[in-house]
């Protein structure tokens, strides 16, 4: 297939609240190729989940996509009617959510929920749909899938539920799956199993993934490319190894420094001082400036543009850290 699976251009998703316009996503651009995993990293409130929901067309009022374009396999999603969007959702793009305890309907059996995910898009018999649901459960490593199909969600553990959610997302072989922190609520052993399985499934099926997380260690093992979000913008993007080894943006360095494994035993852990600014009242200039040790006057007055730093890398910073320098 030619071109990326998904190409997001200058996407702006704002929430028009009484307290003012909250610019949750303010002009972000990225793309994901077939079979590729893009890690979307950021703190709480940086707009990463809103990005995911924008792609799914699940932004509820007062939220609204005010500008930009989202192209899925060349097809523009922004501006599609609710009915057209519903045909895309679940078939061409699926979503996996953070809390597996909450994403399955507690009163419906697993087979009910999986079968309707198929019949919503295809005219197949219930028996055929059930067979496909069974195969999907087997594929994500659920033992005795036939029995498990007729169980209720509360009979599953957290890891098993997330597998069910993954199996459900895979049912219609979407070309893109948006994963909104799907392993955050799981313990580490289950987390690594699920990561390994997702990686394998993507390689087999060619499904592209957008992996939303705040956990850089997850990204390090899973993604090919990373986009770091801060206050509704992508502040740095690049291949995962290069970005983690030599961050350009001070915020990325701060994130890496605050990993407990990076600390010296006995010494206080690093942290980024302050908190993410209110998205309704962003400071003038660079949004990270109030928390940045390198901030100068230009940072407080002028918002930095996204500049290329060598091949495949870009950052929004007036004082990029030691990385291949490029004349502005």
């Amino acid at each position, binding site marked *: 297939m030619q071109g990326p699976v998904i190409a997001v251009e200058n996407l702006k998703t704002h929430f028009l609240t009484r307290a003012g316009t909250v610019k949750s996503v303010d002009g972000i651009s990225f793309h994901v190729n077939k079979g590729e995993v893009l890690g979307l990293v950021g703190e709480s409130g940086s707009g990463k989940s809103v990005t995911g929901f924008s792609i*799914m067309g*699940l932004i509820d*009022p007062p939220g609204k996509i005010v500008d930009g374009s989202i192209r899925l396999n060349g097809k523009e999603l922004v501006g599609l009617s609710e009915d057209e969007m*519903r*045909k*895309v*959702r*679940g*078939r061409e793009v*699926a*979503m996996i*959510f*953070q*809390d597996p305890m*909450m*994403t*399955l*309907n*507690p*009163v*419906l059996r697993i087979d009910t*929920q999986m079968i*309707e*995910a198929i019949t*919503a*898009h295809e005219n197949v018999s219930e028996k055929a749909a059930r067979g496909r649901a069974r195969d999907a459960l087997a594929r994500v490593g659920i033992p*005795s899938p036939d*029995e*498990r199909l*007729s*169980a*209720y969600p*509360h*009979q599953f553990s957290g890891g098993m539920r997330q597998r069910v*959610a993954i199996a*459900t997302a895979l049912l219609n072989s979407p070309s893109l799956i948006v994963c909104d922190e799907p392993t955050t609520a799981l313990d580490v052993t289950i987390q690594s199993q699920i990561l390994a399985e997702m990686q394998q499934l993507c390689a087999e099926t060619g499904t592209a993934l957008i992996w939303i997380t705040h956990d850089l260690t997850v990204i390090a093992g899973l993604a090919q490319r990373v986009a770091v979000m801060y206050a509704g913008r992508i502040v740095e993007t690049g291949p995962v190894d290069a970005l983690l080894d030599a961050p350009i943006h001070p915020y990325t360095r701060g994130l890496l420094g605050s990993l407990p494994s990076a600390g010296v035993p006995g010494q206080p852990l690093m942290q980024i001082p302050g908190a993410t600014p209110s998205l309704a009242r962003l400071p003038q200039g660079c949004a990270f400036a109030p928390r940045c040790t390198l901030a100068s006057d230009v940072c407080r007055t002028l918002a930095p543009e996204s500049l290329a730093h060598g091949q495949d890398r870009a950052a929004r910073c007036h004082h990029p850290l030691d990385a291949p320098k490029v004349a502005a």
Partner: protein
Amino acid sequence: MTDTPISPAMLAGAAAPVPKEETPFTRFRKAFFEDKVAVAGLILFSIIVALALLAPLITPQNPYDLRSVDLMDSRLKPGSVAGEGFTTWLGTDGVGRDLYSGILYGLRISLMVGFLSGLIAASIGMAVGLIAAYAGGRVETILMRIVDLQLSLPAVLIALILVAALGKGVDKIIFALVVVQWAYYARTVRGNALVERRKEYVEAAQSLGLSNARVVFRHIMPNCLAPVIVIVTVQTAHAIALEATLSFLGVGLPQTEPSLGVLIANGFQYMLSGSYWISFFPGLALLLTIVSINLMGDRIRDVLNPRLEK
């Protein structure tokens, strides 16, 4: 907690699949039967329903059939023998109807009116509440203001006016009772649906590309059923009482189809002349019916309320 000894098999079974029979319904049934008072209510209610259903087989007289009623038998004391030869254990009313027969037939009507109106009102109320909560915005405002308006007027008054305008009859009284009840369901269901629709499983269902109708009625509605079941019990008891009230006031059911309310009203005028039984026994039947429903309702509420869970 019961102190069962911990066996190695139990420890090994920690990861084993939960027994399949464990559905929300079986858990509910188990919790319900733990309360003896509720079980007593259920038994009493079952007896009342059985008596009402079997009425034609176990009563000596059909009170709807005016040919079987003899005016000469009027106001017989409990235990007297009627002209037809049977013993009237609960006495007869002012026109010679056997009260035991009358009460069982009356129960049929009262229960039917109570349940039918409750079910119809619950269906309408649930649909309105769900749509209001899911649609939000103007739709929600309009629907919920209608509900507020409805709830601000006294139920008896609305029912009285409706029945007075529509005339007598079982269908009309059911309609009137639906009109006064649906708003309770709408308000409660909306409150619950507002909480449910913010839960992640709704977003997950939407992300699968399901239609709005499917998300609302297949995914959100079953999660809002618990409070509705509680209100159904309370409202059914309420509806039975309200029907009796309307019939007592003379605007409910016609004299030829006596419900409990009609029977009580008929006896009312003889109260002071010593024929207490004409009102007393139908009143007792009404009381037992409502109490049995409420006893069950209390337990159902306790079981289904997540905040009261141990």
